[in-house]
């Protein structure tokens, strides 16, 4: 087994996360899909760090986690705010982006 396996795994997870974003309507699940994509990217970073023998990859993954945490805080706050006004967590109900 080589390190490419990890990368393939990361790709698969990323794809599943992306598809989740496209398919699911519940905002929280969509958000979870995004988290999955971020985590798969982290896996790839960690693997790259191991490949190159350099810890920078791990540091970047660390920063991604921090940023993701911040994003989750804000994102969930938005979901809660939307839910309060609309009594719905469906992303399809938030369609004011159309002209």
């Amino acid at each position, binding site marked *: 087994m080589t390190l490419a396996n990890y990368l393939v795994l990361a790709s698969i997870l990323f794809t599943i996360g*992306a598809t989740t974003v*496209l*398919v699911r*309507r519940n905002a929280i699940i969509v958000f979870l899909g995004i988290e999955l994509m971020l985590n798969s990217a982290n896996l790839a970073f960690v693997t790259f760090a191991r490949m190159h023998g350099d810890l920078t990859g791990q540091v970047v993954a660390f920063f991604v986690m921090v940023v993701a945490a911040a994003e989750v805080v804000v994102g969930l706050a938005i979901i809660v705010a939307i839910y309060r006004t609309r009594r719905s967590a469906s992303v399809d109900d938030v*369609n004011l982006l159309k002209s």
Partner: protein
Amino acid sequence: MTLPAVLPVLAATEEHVTAQAADGVYSSAWLLVAIPLVSAAVLLLAGRRTDRWGHWLGVLASAASFVVGASILLTMLGQPDEERVRDLHLFSWIPAGEFTLDAGMRVDPLSMTFVLLVTFVGTLIHVYSVAYMEHDRDRRRFFAYLNLFVAAMLLLVLADSYLLLFVGWEGVGLASYLLIGFWNHEMPNSVAAKKAFVANRVGDVGMIIAIGLMFATFGATDFETVFAGSPAASEGLLTATGLMLLLAATGKSAQFPLQSWLGDAMAGPTPVSALIHAATMVTAGVYLVVRSGPVYAGAPTALLVVAIVGAFTLLFGAIIGTAKDDIKKALAASTMSQIGYMMLAAGLGPIGYAFAIFHLLTHGFFKAGMFLGAGSVMHGMDDDVNMRRYGALSGLMKVTWITFGLGWLAILGVPPFSGFWSKDKIIESAFATNDGHGWQPWVFGLVALVGAGITAFYMSRLFFMTFHGRRRWSDGHGRSDVDADAPVRHPHESPALMTWPMIVLAVGSVALGGLLTIGDAFAGWLEPVTGHVEHHEPVLPIWLIMALTLVLVAAGAFLAWRQYGAAPVAVVAPRGSVLTRAARRDLYQDDVNEALLMRPGQYLTRSLVFGDRQVVDGAATGLARTVAGSGELVRRLQNGFVRSYAATMVLGVVVLAAVVLAFQL
């Protein structure tokens, strides 16, 4: 006096006098234009406030111009020939880098002749109009236009360059348009005004091209430079310039082929017809040809074309005149024919220039007088213009009858009236064309001769139909010589304001020709402009020409008397011969214009419009429709669903990654 180096070649045949700077009374020449112009501006801008006295301001302005002109004329008469040509520099008009054009005035015998004709006849007609237009609520506006016309006409004849002349040229065109359509609340009048305007525009194109040619050749448009340079210019170029000038002249002077507007121009008030469409403006073409003498001197072909156009129009107008029952239109046809005489004379070259201007002068008097007479008749006949409803007016309108009769004798060329002196000279000169060689003297001479006969016929017809014969109208007491249901008229003599101008003009019709002929006074007067030319011998003896002319005139007049004076005149025009019917329809000139120019033009514009709509607009609207359609399609993607947008994003990622991958492989 030094002639430019190029001139000696010409000096053998023509003696042009170089211009001197204007001083003394000459320097006030600008007042000639300025006074009526200011008056017109005041009348137009001040509006109804000037209604009460505006017409008198108009008369005053015209008279003041005449006084200035007369004082200049008197000064000029007191000076030798060499000092009679003056240039008055006014201001730098177009200073464009290397090219500078100055606005200036050329005060010389030719322009002064016109100045006096325009201001004198113009003033008389102004006075006449005061009474004629008395009941018109827009009389002030009428006088404003008249003053505008006088100013423009004076600018035309006084200009020292073709460009400035063109300004006056357009000015008189504008005034003519405004005055023909003065009663523009009636459709035919505005149509007639438009027709005159359009026909003149065709001529103006010729003028513009001619000016352009001059500018390209000589680098200037002022008379001095152009005339000095023309002997050295190529004949082809001069011919082109001459023909273009002729085109301009045909438009303004109602010569063939742009003659059709003059008849319709009679829609304007009669004083307008007298001043603009008989005495002055329509003769501007003749002025242009005569003024451009040095250009034509190098272009004999162009000159020949001028003569041909003149001769053709002479007969053309005369034939139309024989059939018209509308008194003003008959007079208009006569004007066209008489200007044909002038053009013919001008087309004979330096030999005829003086006679052209001479005839122009006398014609200006007697034709204006007759138009005013016609206006007087209309005034008395409730504005009816149909001569078939006139008759036996001689006793009721004595002054009109006598003054009109004097004009009639003058235009017939009966000695010693004015017309005799001028027209006879033209006929003589026509017989002497081309030094008496070739076909030209015979053709032009005979045309002029026959024209005199026809002129006698139609003018006599007009005269007899109007003033003699039976009474073809009713006086309201059932008394009529023809039928009971004749229109009721109350013919009466016009007020003094109208008769006096007619009397003055009649005096001119009688005496002017003879006075100016004594000792070749007029030809000598114009010599500084036209040059001195020795007379060539006509192909026929002069006494024979004179006798033939008089015989033809007498025959024409007698024929007219027999048919319209002695015999009863039908109230409804008989069908007449083919020629009569053709003449009634102006020899189908409108139909020809319509078929040759108007219809194809309409088809052209229609197809252009179609092309514009389908191709140009089609491309534009098609583009717009494509954009809108694609927008409609793309709009469906813009459904507001975040997930759809995310799908688009992912699609982009996939495509980009696939591209990267494809290049990597």
